[in-house]
Structures are given as C-alpha cells and as structure tokens.
C-alpha cells in the first residue's frame, strides 16, 4: 500500500491550502463562528465550483470528480488545518457516503448530483444515545401511513449542520430493520434545535421528528451503520491531523519568536524536547490517518465488504480516530501552555483549534470506545481466519 502521495495529490493539497489561506483566515473563522448560520454561501459556492470539493470522491456519472477516499482525506486534513467553516463534512462526507451506500440508481441520479455540485447541503442524523451508531440504539421509527407515505418519528442528537441543511438523511427502524431515509427539505413536522456547544466552529442541532414524510433509500447493505461510522472516523481523523499540525506549527512559531531571560523560549531544552515529543505524536497520528484513508480507498465496493475487509476497515478507522483524538488534544494543551498567559486569551487563536480538538475527541465515540472497538475487530478477524482455516 503506497503511503506516499502522487504529484497530482500534492498539487491538489496545495490548491486547497491556498484557498484556505485566502478565504478562511481566523478573522473569517471568528466572524462565521459568531453567526448562527456558521458559514458563508459565497465561500461555499467557490469551494463547490472552483475546487469542486463536495464531489471530489463522487463518481463522475453522478456529477462528481471521480477521485477516491485519499483525495477526500486530503481535503479533510486541509480543512482541519484551516478550521474551515462550512457544510463540507456533513454534506460531502457523511451525506454523500450515506447515499452511495444506500441509494438506487434513480436516487443517486436525483440527490447525489446535488450534493456533488454543492447546490444542496445534506446532513446525516443517526446518533440518539450511544455515539458508536449501534443498531440497537436506533429507536426512531419509520412507518407507512394509510396512504402509503412513509413517516419518521423519533429524536436525533448532535446532527452536524442540522440547522442549515436542506436535505436530511435519517437512520430509522422499520419491520425490515435499520435503514436510511431521506427528507428532501424542511418540513413543519421536523423540529430543529440548534445546540450551544463550546466549539462554535462546528454547528450541531438536535432533530425532533414528528411523523415527518420521508423517502426510503432502497439498499440496506450489511454493516451499513458501521461502515458509515468508519468513513466518518477516517475523515475526521484526517481533519484532526490537519488541526494538530496547525497547532504544532503555531507552537513552533511562537516559542521561537518569544524571548524571555534574553533568549527565545524555544532555546530552553525542556521546551525543545516537548516539541520533539509533540512532533512524534503528530507524525504517528498522521500515519494512522493516512493508512486508514488508504484502507478505505482499497475497498472497491463499500456495499459488499468481505468479512476481512470489514474488520480491517473497522480496525484502522477506530485506530485512527483514537490516535488522532489523543494527539489533537495533546497538541491543543501543549500549544496553549507554550503560549503562556496569552494562549488562554480569547484574542489568541489557539483556543479555536483547542475547542475543535475537544469536540472532535468525543464526536462519533471517545478514544477509549474506539480502542475497544478496534481490538474487537482484530479479534473478529482472527476468529474468521481461524474458521476459514
């Protein structure tokens, strides 16, 4: 498996970096995080039209660029580095993969193209209580009413960009088990409660579904929710690595600029060694995130994964999520500490990444939960191979 990027991929990364530097300085991040809407339509249009990012991993037949998980993870990493404020993760990552996994031809033609072009912004509503998307946790019900219209009833929590999305994909339970359902637009029966969180750069909302009419997405592949969780964790891990890198860089810049006792504080050995330790942390987490993206890219058909593919994907997704979470948090704490008092002020930018690190740490499950999930996947893989033997 190639863990080096191609020249094209490096160029692709550079173009996103340039865009972020240009369009998403922290002044803009601060402006957007203070607004309830949380993103800028013009910027989103440019991300969609100039960079074509929302469709980067979507097959060309459905209006995407036809690249794969590696390119998507590069986009996530750079957006994490620059704290991109916009519905990329909710729409391009979560919603697009949800459709790819469950939509039939017609549904993909109809909806996926809109996500690829960025003209619609989807959100994915799965979490109710547990954050690991266990099927048993899904209590939202999908029932057909007298005139055959499917209606959803239940509550969803921590839906990313739920307050601004115009397309909702919801996991619900019916006689035929757990499936995904699509709500094409806002609806009087759909209650949306924006959440106040410590991380205003990533907007979230609770959904209250009171018999909301919905379209059933046709396919219910095996491992549906777990595959979606794996995709979410892999993309988030790459986003976190980008953020951790940014924190490390700002710690390096500041400690070399900051003079105390007649010398830059970066010349104090205790600080040098901690920065070396932090570099190691970040590079290790980076390897995990890159490897996980490669593993995802290697799954030619996510709808029918072999047991070994499914186990490996889960192992690497949870591994990357756990590693990146610990590293991002560590980077946040160290970078605040190395800034001293100024690092604890609102005007200093460090806390923007620190808070993203905290919210990413618990999103989609805690590091401890993912360590356990990873180990279980390893054990399952062992038993299945034993059975095979």
């Amino acid at each position: 498996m190639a863990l080096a990027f191609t020249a094209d991929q490096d160029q692709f990364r550079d173009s996103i970096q340039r865009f972020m530097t240009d369009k998403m300085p922290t002044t803009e991040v601060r402006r957007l995080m203070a607004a309830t809407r949380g993103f800028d339509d013009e910027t989103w249009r440019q991300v969609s039209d100039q960079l074509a990012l929302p469709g980067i991993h979507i097959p060309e037949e459905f209006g995407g660029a036809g690249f794969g998980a590696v390119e998507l993870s590069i986009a996530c990493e750079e957006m994490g580095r620059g704290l991109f404020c916009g519905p990329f993760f909710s729409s391009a990552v979560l919603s697009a993969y949800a459709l790819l996994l469950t939509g039939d031809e017609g549904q993909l033609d109809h909806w996926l193209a809109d996500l690829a072009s960025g003209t619609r912004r989807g959100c994915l509503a799965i979490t109710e209580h547990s954050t690991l998307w266990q099927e048993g946790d899904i209590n939202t019900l999908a029932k057909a009413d007298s005139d055959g219209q499917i209606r959803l009833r239940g509550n969803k929590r921590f839906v990313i960009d739920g307050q601004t999305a115009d397309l909702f994909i919801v996991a619900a339970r019916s006689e035929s088990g757990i499936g995904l359902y699509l709500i094409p637009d806002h609806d009087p029966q759909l209650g949306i409660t924006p959440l106040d969180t410590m991380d205003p750069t990533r907007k979230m909302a609770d959904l209250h579904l009171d018999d909301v009419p919905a379209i059933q997405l046709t396919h219910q592949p095996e491992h549906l929710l777990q595959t979606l969780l794996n995709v979410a964790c892999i993309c988030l891990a790459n986003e976190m690595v980008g953020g951790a890198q940014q924190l490390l860089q700002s710690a390096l810049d500041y400690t070399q600029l900051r003079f105390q006792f007649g010398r830059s504080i970066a010349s104090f050995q205790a600080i040098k060694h901690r920065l070396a330790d932090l570099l190691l942390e970040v590079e290790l987490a980076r390897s995990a995130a890159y490897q996980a993206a490669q593993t995802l890219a290697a799954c030619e058909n996510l709808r029918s994964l072999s047991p070994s593919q499914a186990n490996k994907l889960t192992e690497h997704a949870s591994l990357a999520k756990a590693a990146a979470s610990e590293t991002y948090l560590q980077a946040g704490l160290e970078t605040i500490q190395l800034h001293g008092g100024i690092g604890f002020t609102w005007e200093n930018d460090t806390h923007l990444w620190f808070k993203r690190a905290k919210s990413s740490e618990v999103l989609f499950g805690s590091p401890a939960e993912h360590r356990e999930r990873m180990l279980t996947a390893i054990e399952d893989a062992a038993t299945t191979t034993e059975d095979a033997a």
Partner: protein
Amino acid sequence: MSEHAAIHAEVTQWLSQHWDPDMDLLSWRSLVADSGWGAPNWPSDYYGKDLSPQQTAVVEQAFAEFGAVGAAQSGVRMLAAVTLLAHGSHEQKQKYLRGILTGEDQWCQLFSEPGSGSDLAGATTRADLRGDQWIVNGQKVWNTSAHHAQYGLLLARTNWDAPKHQGLTYFVINMEQPGVEVRQLAQMNGHASFNEVFMTDAVVSREDLVGAEGGGWQCAMTTLANERRSFDRARDVAGRKGRQGKIFADLEAEFAIANEPYTWYPQRAGRVDLVMPRAKETGAINDPATRQDIARLHIMAECAKWTGDRAKAAAKAGKPQGPEGSLGKLAASNVARLASRVHTAISGNDALLTGQTSPMDGLIAEILVSTPAISIAGGTDEIQKNIIAERVLGLPKEPRFDDGPFRDVRRNTQAPSEG
C-alpha cells in the same frame, strides 16, 4: 490580668461604644482606621498601634467575637500598604494608607507585560523624568480590578544601561488620568478576570516614586511576597457573610465585586468533587476503563491533599520545610488536567454543551475550557519546575543570557522603542 486579656478587653470596650451594624461601611471603617484598631500592627504614626503580630491576632479575635467588621484589607490594597510601609516616604504613607483601610481607594498591580511574563524583571514600560514629572509609556497586562482602581503599583524602567534588575523603579500611579487606558481582557472560557493597561505619556509626580530610583525590584519583591496572604484575607471577609445590617450589605457588595474575577477558579481546578456524582448520574461508573481513570484521579487528588497536610503538620511541629511544601502548585496542575480528561470521558458528547440542555448548566464545559489556565496563571509549570529543580533539589541554575546592560539584552519586539 494578662496583657493579651487587657488588649482584648480594651478592643471589646471600644467596639461596644462604637459598633453599629446600621452604619454604612465607609463611615464605620473611617472610625476604625482613625482609632488604630484597623491595623494595630502598623506604626502609631500611621493608623496603627505598634502592636506585635500576636497582639494583633488578639485584636482581630476580639473583632471576630464581637461580630464587628474590621478595616478593608482584601486584595491588592494590602499589597500596596505593606509595600508603602516598607519602602514609602512619610508623605506617601500619610497620603495613601488611610484610604486603604477605609476601602475608599481600590488599587491594582502593574507589573506583568506582554513581553515579560515569566521574566518580570524584563519589563520595558519606560518612565522618563521630564522636569518634575515622570512620563510613563508602555503596556501592562494581567491586571486584576484595574478597571475600577484609583491607584496602580507600577514597575517601570528608568535606566536602560543598568542590568535588568537594577534599571527598574517603583511608582504609585493615578489610574484616573487621560494617559491611562484600561481594557478588559477576555479569556478563552468567556470570562474576563484581567485587564490590559495602556499608558501613553501618563504622568506620575516625583513624590510618587517609591523607594529609590533603580530600587524598583526590591519593592516589587515585597509586594509579591505578600500576594498569597492578601487572598487569605479575602476569604476571611467571605466568612462574615449573611449577617443583618446595612454595613453587612455593603460588605457583601464589596466582596461580590472583589470576588467576581474568581468565580471560574473552581472549574479551573477541575472540580474533582463532581466526578463521582457525574459518573453515577451518567452510568460511566459502570465502565471498567473509566473506573481506572476515576481511580487515578482520586489517587492523585488525595495524594496532593495529603502532601499539603504533611507540609502543614511539619510547619506546626516546627520542623524545617521539606520538599512537600513546594509541590502544591505543580500537583494542582496535574490534578486539573486529569480531571478535565475524566469529566470528558464521563460526559461524552454532552460535555460540549453550554446551552439549556447542557449538564449542570454548562459547568462541565466550563471545566474543559478553564483547566488549561491553572498550569499558567501565577507562574507556569515550567517556572515551577525550574524553581523545584534549582531551589529544592539544588540543581544547577539555567545559564544566563540577560546580564549586562538591559538595552543589549535580546527581547520581544512589541515593547516600545528605547530612548
């Protein structure tokens, strides 16, 4: 009857003649200040009675037993008084000490600068003598209650050719003048406990130079040495809350203002007390991995507490202080850091919530965004470790790169250009 008993009787007698809880706080404290009972350990020339610390304790005891309010002492006021008594001129003592005891005047400390945090002696705020006035230019930061202070204790550089510690001079500066601008400084947790103070051609009269020109560092040391003690006083005041009478209402109001910057300090320390209740409430107490972290935290917190107890017990037994006395701050940082992790593990996604639906009304989230301050405020962990290594363990000092004339010392650029 013993000397202490005599003092106790005299104070009680005086209180029974003058104490009236329906007086307003200022009038009462004026009485107290002029009586000498407000600061009996101070010289009798300056609102005191030349009493010993032991005798002073008897007076305070008598006030407490009588339930009477004493002189204003909490906060930076006391630091100003102690410093002026030690280094101030006769005129300065006469001019400032009474307003300190009566509580009329609020004081603030103007030491730290953006360019000199850990390295206080690297201050680059400059004071230049023009005729009869010192003209002050520069910026200070981390100034608690500067936004409602009448006077500031200012450390400024008056000599750029002397080594860093010898070029500093200590002043009393009037905060209520056009050259002084105070801005509140917001923190990442949304509170604003501190201020920035910008001085642009601010004026200090020659009479307000404290101690000797170039002797500012010694004065500042006196101020800092008394910092902890002053906060203990603040707690005493808190102890008197809830009594009836206008005077107590005034007192509570005063205390509320004085305490406002510190409401988030318990969260900064990690709120270990909330761990078990939250763990039971959320059911996290049933997760074996989380239990290990909760146990680790409990162990660390108990050990830190007992280490402090050992230091107190040793002091009480009149033993020389061992290392246990110097480790509290570092231990507190570790406890808070771990507590923040444990609270995150316990509350999961909910730990992020700050709105109505949030656990404990956003308190958990406030812990997560406040704990990073404890390893920085009042001396970073790095400085603490230097102190422990050099003073407690006796390891070699860091090589110096900042001796010699201050103008040649490499430093941060945000300081004003040198003259």
